[in-house]
């Protein structure tokens, strides 16, 4: 599967990255190379193989439904680029 500039542009929106024309060009080439290299995995027949998403196979890890102290609001908002003391602020989301 070869990667086109249009693919890369579409992906950059999905990834919420703004790429300059130059970056788009370079990215298209470099991703192409990497994807090309990755294609070697197709040499392997993995039909019968179970995927391995975790490095340790633990199951049923739960915590009790017990209250823990929340952060003071000041602490929660302390790192916010923009806040009004009560809420995080973002450029208005239109519609919805």
């Amino acid at each position: 599967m070869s990667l086109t500039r249009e693919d890369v542009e579409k992906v950059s929106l999905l990834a919420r990255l703004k790429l300059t024309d130059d970056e788009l060009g370079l990215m298209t080439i470099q991703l192409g190379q990497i994807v090309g290299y990755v294609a070697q995995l197709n040499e392997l027949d993995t039909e019968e193989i179970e995927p391995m998403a975790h490095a340790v196979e633990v199951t049923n890890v739960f915590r009790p439904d017990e209250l823990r102290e929340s952060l003071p609001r000041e602490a929660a908002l302390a790192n916010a680029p923009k806040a009004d003391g009560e809420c995080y602020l973002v450029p208005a989301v239109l519609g919805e």
Partner: protein
Amino acid sequence: MANDYTVIIGLEVHVQLLTRTKLFCGCSTKFGEPPNTQTCPVCIGLPGALPVMNREAFELALETAVAINCEIAPFTKWDRKQYYYPDLPKGYQISQYDLPFSFNGYLAISDPKDRFEAKKVGIIRAHLEEDAGKSMHDERAGKADSRIDLNRTGTPLLEIVSQPDLRSPLEAKTYLQELKLLLVYLGVSDCNMQEGSVRVDANINLHIPQSNGHTAKTPIVEIKNMNSFRAVERALTYEAERQYQVWQETKQEIGDVPKQTRGWDDVANVTRGQRHKEESSDYRYFPDPDLAPVTVTPERIQSVRESLAELPADLRHRLEVTYGIKMYDSDVLVNQGRPVVDYYVELAELAGDGQAAANWVTQDVLRVMNERNLTIEQFPIRPPVVADLITRVKGGDFDTSKARGIFTELLESEKTVAQIVAEKGIRKVDESELISLCRELVTANPKIVADVKSGKVAAAASLIGQAKKRNPNVNPARVREICLELIEGM
């Protein structure tokens, strides 16, 4: 609704589970606290923070799934649903994609008024996921900033997706009411619509039979922003009509246009199209590496099934069988919730008359509860007292209208039935006394007798009035009978 098409409806219901803390952290799920006072590194999605599953949330979800007859997956995992929105701090929602913990269930619905056939509504799947926060948008959208409150972020939600088995807005509303009732009986959710603990999205389209035998299928539309069950019913009714109009104009069928999302405007009573960038639908699901999968054994499922509370449908059936009451009454009682049912059952047992007990509860008790908006627990007249009234009426001490009078007095005063009966001098009038009274009246009122004989039976009413003046305890119906018999014989 026009009959020349069939409405096809499927519902997606999001239910907030009644846990103390959030799905993946120990922050409180309490509603209505000041913004951003119930957050921590985990639910803010701070770098480095990790989720750990709330056991209670999974238990409640499991109970519900079993109650709606779902199969339970022996192995289930958690996936990341990825999209960007300011109230979704991690940039993904932890949900379930290809291996939901439960699937293939159903919920039975019926209508006591028989407006539709009783049916089993299929449930495709029920899965557990985390809620997002709240974005508060400025009215002058685009002008000011939107404000983000993350208190709700991470609250456990159960998403229940029905098959497109619903055939009318009324069926849809009934399904929702029955589902809500079930959840409340299970105690897994308070289903408070105002606080958003139940949220509904609907998918709807029409099947329109054509003269040539082909059935036209209109494009499926998803409706959002419906904030009450009534709104769902109204939105669906509107949307069905709208789709029919559009179809007549465009003849567009499913597949001709991309699936559309429309928002319900509760004020204008219309649905409005919502613009969505096509890319936003590429959620890039993949298994969350931070969470361990969950396994459930058949033994576990069995023990859940055995520990379930009695479900509404079973309860209705039990009341009908045990107390011989009408389906309509059992429906009214059960829909009021477990406490009212318990009140009824106590009353029925004490009075030894299920139907009379049902009449008293559904007519008198519920009416007063609504008028004074009391809960059954707050209701001042307890079952033994009402049972006493029922027994006395059956014993002929006084008639139902008198009993109602006493009932009303009991609401106002601390008095007992006996006291009120004594004060009002209410006592049983025996038959002989009644007959002699009637004789006197008949002989004293030749005019009326004549009228009655000439066919104006209504004239007998004044005899009854006079009888009541002489003795307030007489049973008017009986007085009427006796008088008419006497006149007959004259």
